[in-house]
């Protein structure tokens, strides 16, 4: 229904090489494989973490252009991880997208409040995921 012409899926060639790094935090091994394959196909470098604690540690350990964070995870859930990230001066600028199975407005608000920049509901199609990743982390100046 949109006639918006700027399709973000076809960036100019010279910018492809500058694609960013994405940290995927999800306790589901299938979900991680899915994210990894979709995002790598779009040219991103993907790192995985299996819970909030690991996600936080990995976020601390190196620089990312985007974090994709599940909400319900063991040890430390997505909300707690995001809150931790946002109180850390080194990490507070990194954009974060939460992807959760919970579709209610309340969950979305809670995620945005905790520290997410964007909220998506599972299942997220590969096209949608690629689009979001490209828009937020595709060519962010680092």
């Amino acid at each position: 229904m949109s006639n918006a012409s700027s399709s973000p899926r076809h960036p100019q060639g010279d910018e492809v090489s500058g694609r960013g790094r994405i940290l995927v935090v999800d306790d589901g091994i299938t979900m991680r494989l899915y994210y990894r394959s979709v995002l790598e196909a779009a040219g991103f470098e993907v790192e995985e973490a299996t819970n909030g604690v690991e996600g936080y540690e990995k976020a601390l350990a190196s620089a990312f252009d985007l974090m994709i964070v599940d909400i319900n995870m063991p040890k430390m859930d997505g909300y707690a991880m995001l809150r931790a990230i946002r109180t850390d001066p080194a990490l507070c600028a990194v954009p974060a997208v939460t992807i959760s199975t919970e579709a209610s407005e309340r969950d979305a608000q809670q995620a945005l409040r905790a520290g997410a920049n964007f909220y998506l509901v599972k299942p997220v199609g590969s096209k949608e995921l690629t689009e979001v990743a490209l828009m937020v982390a595709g060519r962010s100046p680092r």
Partner: protein
Amino acid sequence: MKNAQLLARFIGEARDLLQGTSSGLLQLDRGPGDEAALNEVFRGFHTLKGSVGLFDFPAFTKLVHAGEDILTAVRSQDLVLTSDLVDRLLDALDQVSSWVDHLERSGEMPGDADGVSREMTAALRVCLPDPPAGGGDAPAPASRSSVLCVDAPWLATFAPEEREAALSGATASGSALIAFDYLPAEDCFFFGEDPFALVTGLPGLQCLSVTPVASWPAIGTLDPYRCHLRFRGLVLGPSDAVETAFRYVPDQVAMAPVPPGFLGGEATGEGAAPTVEPWAPMARRILGQQREVLAFALEEDGRAARIESVIRTVSGLLATGGHAARSRLWAERTSAASADAAAMTELLDDWLAADGAAAAAPPASGEAVPERAPDRSRPGQADGASQDLKPANRVLKVDQAKVDTLMALIGELVVSKNSLPFLARRAEDIYGSRDMSREIKDLYGVIDRLAQEMQGAIMAVRMLPVSEVFDRLPRLVRDLARRLDKRISLRIEGGDTAADKNMIEVLGDPLIHVIRNAIDHGIETPDLREQAGKPPEAVVRVAAFQENDQVVIEVSDDGRGIDPAKIREKAVAKGILDAERAARLTDQDAINLIFYPGFSTAPEVSDLSGRGVGMDIVVTTVEAAGGTVSVTSETGLGTRVRLSLPLSMAVTRVMLVEVGDTPYGIPMDHIVETVRVRRGAVRHIKQAEAFVLRQSIVPLVRLDRVLDLPDRRVADDPDHEEAVLVVRVAGSLLGLVVDHFREGMDIILKPLDGILSSVRGFAGTALLGDGRVLLVLNLKELL
């Protein structure tokens, strides 16, 4: 995306989850208050639901979703988990498990899955307190998005004057303006629905557009009993009134409030080209949510932390092309020292309104969402519980090949991590970014630590106690003693000392050989012992212990010891060295002669240890594994042989040197120090070169010559400083002249194989982080 691969991953994950979830359920059945178990079970269903959503298996999704809802209710204490309920959940898991088996076999769900799922889902859902009306609580994955994206093309559905009227209507009444998009089900007429009547009956309807879902078919092929229409419109709120109107068709309607400020009063006009790039729907959604984030930031006194992430997100989005002007504006607005949430919100509002509408906000949802309390799960608790489940010290049998694979992978990791210092250097040298270089180095530190820990962990798995070898000894000693008419008591100590299994394997033969030697040559017969005033029963002591990163095995006996005089005699007799030199040897050096190939001290070759192999074979074997052998002895009192091996042979530490632009690795244990020697200070002794290091003459060897590299004429500048690596080879010092020293690093040494295996002088190869192959020198062979 290879779907098969994803499915295979899912099948594995599902099985793990099913197992954990089932045992969690059984745990809950025994102790319903077990919060950790409850969380685990909930997460099992939850994760299954999330993962299966990637596939088109609605029957599967619905059943695990029902299970999750049950557990949500249990967690929020709206539902008591009875044994009956546990049974139903276990049944559901069994069913899911059989589906997983079917998926693995055929890649699809069985034909009866829908029916089975419907029944089991219903059986679960009846247990839920207060089932939501109309079952609308379980949105099928295929149902349309409940979030409507209101964008410019969408609003262009309505005539400008209508939009204006709607706006003024909203302003006048003070009500919210709500956009709706209603796509009736094709068969809705059969359910007595009349979408047009429903829509025109909406109180406060402002604009309406009715369009065909697809272009109209030829009139002759139109099925008048199927609905092909789509209804879109703007209606004055409140939103719950609109929701009520659509209450029977919630899955066919998407709604979003249109925030005040949209349309901006002036219509863009039909077909008028917008002056700025229109937003893609996803961009609009993203920007809209940034506004929300900023709103939270404002609530919390404009917390800078949140603003930073919004700046990054929006900057990234604007960089996707076509937004150059906005990008500049955004940079200006946010680079100001006082980038504040209010100013940013204003800019976002401008943009969102600019091409005709404002951000789509998700519809205000009136439904009561059961209180979810993810925060209640205390960190670490689930872990503790799952540990409790397992009996302590459970032994896992693992195929050795798997451990070896893991070891090899970690080896690769160790090698890969070595590329980071290269990268850091490049960042600094080529791209001039010290910060980046430092960041990479920091990162390297972290990865290095993790890799080491990981290596340690896997090493631990491979560790075996030396008793694996020691257990063979009593029998050996007893047999030998009887054949030689000697009385021997074997004492073993430190059998639980652990070492890498490779080392244990290496250790076996040399150890047996040393013990044979001791019994054969060292231990006297009982009568000889008594003559010497010793107890008739000799003692052979085998002790293992760890010393730094070495495992040490000492074999000592209280026999006659090694007589240096006899050794000298024999060495001279065998022509190994002349009498004059033999006389100059210290006693210890003389004793060391037993390691000389072919040397044997027994007057006659016994049938036991003298099968043409002497101590030299022990030394060769142990040194090949990176170990050392030493012997000490006191005549008449006994001999002690010390075998020292690295705990593991996986990683070799080398120092990189460069000769002729090629890196070579020198094993670290050879290296004494690195020095710079002025060319003028190099002494020439005939063809040979040497230099003075702390009052001793150290011979110089040019590595390029040893390696037969092409001769490179260097200017004969006496002030030129040579890079000299002082190494100790076979006990003596030597200076190796190289071009440059580089860093030390851990490598996984791969022995030369194939036709290269006969090349002398190289210990093997290793892959460098920058992709080059490193040749590691074997100095002993080379020099």
